[in-house]
């Protein structure tokens, strides 16, 4: 046996004399940190919290499957992101930093019309311009693409018609930007201008020329792209409500406002393969779309994700300009670079949908929420993008964290002649969440109870199921609410502050990765795959396709690998830029990356760990079960002095085969219901959050200043608390923008009036409140080391928290977002007219006297707290489904217990008359059902 670092083989048995005296030269080596008094390593019971922090108490959220591979190296430690040095020193290469030899500049000709047919395009004058190397139009790209396989409705450039001002018409590549810009003026195009649609309500009507045509699935001749109906539970519960709330909301569209504009460089290499450099959140879908559009097999394309200067969902579609660059590069034989102006960024949009949302909710005499009734009409703009999913998310992501007696949702997404809406941080959940949380506040007001207690007494427990069939695992909602209540000194402030000062609560619930991937071909393909390689130098190279868009996914992967292999983070090198070298990862959307990719990375790291332990087994003679890997050593569990260095073990493992390699993958387990659309909103885990916001409202001007936010977010386990806090604070900033100042303004003529960062008002540092991030760790059984998402969910609660705080400050419910000063002032004027006062400073500040219900709620919340604790620790593993609060038996399917318990995805004919705005889409028939009707 080669000479590993061995001392006293066989353990400590031979080293003590029977008389208790020590044997010279054969002292037992104490374990590090034991102070020499304990010859053996103390065993640690992972089910209990360590003695150093109290001991005896069971782990608050139970133990985790990954606990046995914890080494204490990096998980849970605050560390700067691994790519932060590159960014702060200007060495990160973003889309526009790529410079290839001989590259030329591409420019895009954009539609000046909202909606028009292209009758002809004459490019002869363009081609004749000296310096122009290639020209392309829709004729060069007949194939459709789109991020979702079910709604491929985009072309690289307009084929037949343009659908909004700024839609792509043609493109040119020229030797420099000036020539390319000059060339854009030389296209001769004959247009036939069509009647545009801007108002989403009009999108529900039949028109002569719908913006897209879906053949037999097209809904009459409307512009409805997707309609959704979902109804669950016992609708009879809502008939005689004890309290209710009803609100109609209008929410403006908002944009991600990322720093880096879109930029792309395409180059067909010497062997005829395409290299495409692009700041993409989901390079894999771009890869697929390029293959379709260019008619080139995927293996002949290498998508290189540059550093991404912010995405927030706005860089997660395959984009037409990426196709244009590739087409121009193929035609010109030169690398082509296209960089957007800010105006073009707004025209490609994919921001949050402008929405009309109506929420009715009811509570019964026990203050249980007997029904949510949500109607969401969302304005999709010119293309489908992620809209199919958004249409579902607007409803289904409101089915938790509360236990509901019934749930009713109608949604519709319509095409209009505006830039396309898409996915944005908090995808589909943000607007409805705001409406729901404000509704709860209003309902608490009518019942004269504290809105926090109303929530605490109606929460779904951990390890339960929502009314729509989502599997809830860990759930830190209760703790989050309790923490912000004490943190903000809520009980001293709520409804007790003078006019103009207010405090409000809002909660959030979001998916941590979507259960079903967007692309599921080939069958059972993992959502995330990670490859790992350890060569003789001991450094670990991790290959992953996960796109770091600033959220820190690269750091998260490096951290979990470092944790499992007990190596300092500097020894982990993540390679994630090229599709040639990275295994497929589905991309950075739906808050899936840390959850899925880190899980895959842990599995790969465990494989490497096993190879190392086996090698150490050969050297030391102890079975891997008795070996510990830590601190760049592998040593005997009962005597740490007996061990071998990491490198020694590594070199042993590499004998005759060289670098160690491993692969890990993650695919979420099958779960959820079987009804149509059951997969939308399904996730392997969910995050929960609760925020309290404090505001000052200037009653004379209507200007709102958010001053303080207490933000508690349940991320399962903070792999890197610094990154989690950053996400919470950043989410607050983005959400504050939506609630206070940001909106895409479409003027009288339907033009986007503020396509620049001066007039699109992202809050500046002056508008930022003091945010106190509070991390809640509920230790998710499926998450990597217990972690769940922290990137999107934290955005949700800030909107309702601010809106509720404004009510607390001035007693006015406002339901038009953003709450710009003029909107608030209008509300104040209206309130003044209805009052006996002339001066807004005389308006009364709202007050609240608790009713007898308050005590009941407090008592119920207390009972539930005990219930939840037992369930979270899995001391109570009995089934729990939404409905138990209403007295149903969780072991029997609810539809068998209650007559009239509905799981419906289409309205009954008698319901049609009473559907909301979006619900009216159900009055129309699909073309295939309309034979001969038109």
């Amino acid at each position, binding site marked *: 046996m080669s000479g590993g670092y061995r001392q006293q083989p066989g353990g400590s048995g031979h080293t003590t004399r029977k008389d208790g005296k020590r044997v010279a030269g054969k002292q037992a080596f104490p374990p590090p940190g034991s102070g020499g008094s304990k010859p053996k390593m103390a065993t640690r019971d992972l089910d209990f919290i360590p003695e150093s922090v109290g001991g005896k108490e069971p782990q608050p959220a139970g133990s985790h499957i990954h606990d046995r591979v914890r080494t204490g190296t990096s998980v849970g430690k605050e560390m700067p992101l691994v790519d932060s040095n590159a960014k702060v020193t200007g060495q990160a290469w973003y889309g526009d930093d790529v410079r290839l030899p001989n590259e030329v500049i591409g420019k895009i000709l954009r539609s000046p019309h909202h909606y028009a047919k292209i009758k002809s395009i004459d490019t002869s004058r363009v081609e004749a311009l000296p310096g122009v190397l290639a020209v392309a139009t829709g004729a060069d790209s007949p194939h459709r693409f789109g991020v979702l396989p079910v709604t491929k409705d985009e072309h690289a450039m307009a084929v037949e018609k343009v659908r909004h001002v700024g839609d792509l018409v043609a493109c040119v590549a020229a030797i420099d930007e000036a020539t390319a810009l000059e060339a854009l003026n030389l296209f001769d195009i004959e247009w036939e201008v069509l009647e545009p649609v801007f108002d989403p309500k009009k999108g529900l009507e039949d028109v002569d020329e719908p913006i897209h045509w879906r053949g037999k699935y097209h809904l009459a001749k409307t512009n409805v792209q997707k309609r959704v109906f979902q109804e669950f539970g016992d609708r009879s519960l809502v008939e005689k409500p004890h309290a209710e709330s009803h609100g109609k909301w209008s929410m403006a569209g908002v944009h991600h406002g990322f720093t880096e504009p879109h930029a792309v460089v395409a180059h067909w290499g010497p062997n005829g393969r395409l290299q495409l450099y692009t700041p993409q959140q989901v390079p894999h879908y771009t890869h697929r779309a390029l293959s379709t559009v260019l008619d080139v097999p995927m293996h002949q394309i290498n998508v290189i994700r540059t550093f991404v200067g912010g995405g927030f969902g706005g860089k997660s579609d395959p984009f037409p300009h990426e196709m244009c660059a590739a087409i121009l590069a193929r035609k010109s034989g030169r690398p082509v670079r296209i960089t957007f102006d800010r105006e073009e960024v707004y025209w490609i949009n994919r921001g949050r949908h402008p929405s009309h949302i109506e929420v009715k909710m009811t509570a019964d005499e026990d203050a249980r929420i007997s029904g949510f009734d949500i109607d969401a009409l969302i304005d999709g703009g010119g293309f489908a993008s992620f809209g199919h999913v958004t249409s579902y998310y607007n409803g289904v992501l409101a089915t938790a964290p509360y236990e509901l007696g019934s749930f009713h949702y109608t949604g519709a997404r319509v095409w209009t002649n505006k830039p396309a809406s898409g996915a944005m941080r908090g995808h589909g959940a943000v607007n409805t969440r705001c409406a729901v949380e404000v509704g709860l506040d209003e309902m608490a007001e009518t019942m004269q109870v504290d809105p926090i207690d109303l929530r605490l007494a109606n929460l779904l427990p951990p390890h339960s199921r929502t009314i729509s069939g989502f599997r809830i695992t860990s759930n830190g909602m209760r703790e989050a609410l309790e923490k912000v209540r004490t943190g903000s000194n809520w009980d001293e402030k709520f409804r007790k502050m003078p006019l103009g000062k207010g405090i409000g609560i809002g909660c959030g619930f979001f998916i941590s990765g979507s259960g079903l991937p967007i692309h599921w071909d080939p069958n059972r393909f993992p959502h995330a795959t990670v490859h790992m390689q350890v060569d003789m130098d001991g450094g670990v190279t991790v290959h992953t396709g996960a796109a770091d868009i600033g959220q820190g996914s690269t750091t998260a992967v490096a951290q979990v690998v470092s944790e499992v292999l007990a190596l300092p983070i500097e020894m982990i090198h993540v390679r994630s830029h090229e599709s040639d070298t990275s295994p497929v990862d589905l991309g950075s959307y739906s808050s899936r990356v840390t959850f899925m990719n880190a899980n895959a990375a842990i599995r790969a790291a465990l494989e490497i760990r096993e190879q190392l332990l086996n090698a150490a087994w050969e050297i030391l003679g102890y079975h891997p079960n008795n070996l510990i890997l830590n601190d760049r050593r592998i040593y005997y569990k009962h005597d740490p002095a007996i061990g071998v260095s990491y490198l020694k073990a590594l070199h042993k493992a590499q004998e005759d085969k060289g670098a160690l390699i491993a692969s890990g993958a993650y695919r979420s387990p099958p779960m959820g219901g079987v009804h149509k659309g059951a997969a939308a909103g399904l996730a392997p885990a969910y995050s929960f959050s609760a925020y309290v916001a404090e505001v000052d409202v200037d009653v004379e001007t209507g200007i709102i200043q958010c001053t303080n936010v207490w933000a508690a977010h349940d991320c399962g386990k903070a792999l890197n608390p610094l990154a989690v806090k950053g996400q919470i604070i950043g989410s607050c900033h983005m959400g504050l923008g939506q609630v206070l100042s940001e909106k895409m303004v479409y*003027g009288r003529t339907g033009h986007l009036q503020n396509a620049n960062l001066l007039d699109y008002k992202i809050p*500046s540092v002056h508008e930022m409140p003091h945010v106190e991030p509070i991390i809640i760790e509920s230790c998710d059984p499926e998450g990597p080391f217990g972690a769940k998402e922290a990137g999107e969910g934290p955005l949700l609660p800030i909107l309702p928290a601010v809106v509720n705080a404004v009510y607390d400050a001035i007693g006015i419910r406002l339901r038009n977002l953003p709450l710009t*000063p003029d909107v608030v002032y*209008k509300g104040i004027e209206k309130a003044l007219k209805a009052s006996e006062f002339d001066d807004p400073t005389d308006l009364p500040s709202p007050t609240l006297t608790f009713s007898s219900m308050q005590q009941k709620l407090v008592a119920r919340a207390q009972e539930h707290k005990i219930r939840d604790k037992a369930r979270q620790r899995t001391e109570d593993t009995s089934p729990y489904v939404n409905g138990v609060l209403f007295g149903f038996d969780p072991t029997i399917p609810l539809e068998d217990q209650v007559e009239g318990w509905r799981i419906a995805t289409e309205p009954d004919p008698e319901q049609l008359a009473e559907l909301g705005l979006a619900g009216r889409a159900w009055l129309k028939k699909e073309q295939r059902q309309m034979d001969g009707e038109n």
Partner: protein
Amino acid sequence: MLMPPFTLHNPTTVEEACTLAGELLEKGEAFDWVAGGTDLLPNYKWHINPKPHVISLARIEGVDTLSLHEIGCMARLGDLTAENGIHPLIVEAAGKVASSLIRHNATLGGNICLDTRCFWYNQGEDWRRSIDWCHKADCGTGAECRVIPNQNTLCVATYQGDIAPTLMVLDAEVHLIGPNGLRVIPITEFYQLDGMKKNVLEDGEFLLKVTLSKEAAGRSGSYQKLRVRDSWDFPEAGVAASWIPGDVSSLQIATTALESIPRCHPEEVSAVLDEGWDGISSIKALAAGVRKSVQPVNNTSLPPRYRKSMVRVLTKRAVEKMIEEIQ
């Protein structure tokens, strides 16, 4: 965004600048003056009225003076707010302009001569093409004004400078120089009602400096600015008030960001003074009068109705703050 090409001239004396301007005029070549460039260059990048020649004032010696009685056109707003001895009202307004980064470059002259703004005008070329061009930016296309359709004569772009109203209530004078010599006029006569012409500067003239009389230096006042964000944003409405402390009859009010020019409101002030000053109720009457006299249009971020309503609040606050200061 690609800056259109232009020839940059860098005169080092006022005389050289004037001669240069005269020569270009004679040749019939169009040109713009540039000081800090924070207003002109973004417009150039958007291809808003770019000219083939630009004359920079940056290398001219002695035009960045900073004192109580005289401020040169090249005085940077950042320096102005940091310097001791400048009139506090000017410092207050200058400190509210844009952000500290922009103030580092922006100059007093540039701020006074700020181009008028409009959300149909301050847009890229592709954007303006989509509205079939703008009356102010794309002269020659025959485009109508998009703010108020069916009228083609007047541009109603909004003047959104912060410092002009404070200079107005301080009775400042502006010194204009050009090939035809120097003239000195009160700043209240500097602006000319039309979003395109903007002011009385003649071809080849530029604003050399601003002077404040001894009497004016004794005035105190307040500037109130309405904006969505406390940084970057242009005023959506602005009201400046000043008086000789304790003497109500010396009260002056000026507004900005509501119309194509900033202006003083002597009639509204004297209407209230004629009734006899009565503290709070007079302030209210004055605020209502000023509010009534302004006519904002829909071409900035906030709706005109709201901006107009806010003039009342801003006037009230400006006067109240001014009076409070001596108590």
